[in-house]
């Protein structure tokens, strides 16, 4: 069994008002670390009952580039967890 995790985040140059709001909320709530910025994204956890083959990983990459992310505003990365 393996989990293929696709992380999607807004590109650096795209305004992220949700991340900015979180960044402002942290010190207000008493957290003492001071982030220079917070970016909010989302993860897709795809579970397989086997280790993904190279072909399957490239299919997942294609799904990430077409459905799971919008390449105009978002970038993605893929990692496999056993």
């Amino acid at each position, binding site marked *: 069994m393996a989990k293929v995790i696709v992380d999607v985040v*807004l590109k650096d*140059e*795209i*305004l*992220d*008002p*949700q991340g900015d*709001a979180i960044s402002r909320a942290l010190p207000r709530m008493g957290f003492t670390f001071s982030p220079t910025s917070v970016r909010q994204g989302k993860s897709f956890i795809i579970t397989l009952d086997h280790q993904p083959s190279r072909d399957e990983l490239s299919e997942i990459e294609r799904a990430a580039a077409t*459905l*799971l992310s*919008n390449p*105009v*505003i978002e970038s993605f990365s893929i990692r496999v967890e056993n």
Partner: protein
Amino acid sequence: MRVGVVTFPGTLDDHDAARAVRFAGGEALSLWHGDSDLQGVAGVILPGGFSYGDYLRCGAIARFSPIMSAIIPAAEKGLPVLGICNGFQVLCESHLLPGALTRNSELHFLCRDQEIEIVNNESAWTSDFSVGERITIPLKNGEGSFQCDDRTLNELESNNRVIARYVGINPNGSRNSIAGITNARGNVVGVMPHPEHAVDPLTGPTADGLAFFTSLMKTRV
């Protein structure tokens, strides 16, 4: 003239869009998201709402619906298509229009009457306006901030592809206060505020939005 109005699961404004078509003197034909036959319509409206519950991203699922698989190639061949609000988001996700609509800069869902200025009256949906004309129509969305890279923005600006801008304070952080854009050919238009809610002073703030629909009647009679 028959104009198709698409209904996706979660579409809200299809009835008002159909009413706007009738007010403009056209015949509105309902198109279902699961069908792939455009039934010979002379134009298509993708109305506002929350297609497929805005799952994944606004407009992302609608892009892959059977009706969009018919609309995309027809639009590329010149069929007039107007996307309003969620419809604009669907057009961007379909790559019929560049850029993307993201969360409003102040994070709030906005619902108010908004003044916009028409800056291009050469598209299929804006020919009945004058350049510089200011109109007031409802704006109601949570993800209406138009974003694109610098190269795309330059391309839009230098080729007169911005059709409308917000007047006064930029309500949502859209680049260059863009409220609506068109494709290179001028047949596909996306607009964030809602002209279909402003076709009759009895039910809307103005009747300023009607000219979007009367423009189409003149485009392809």
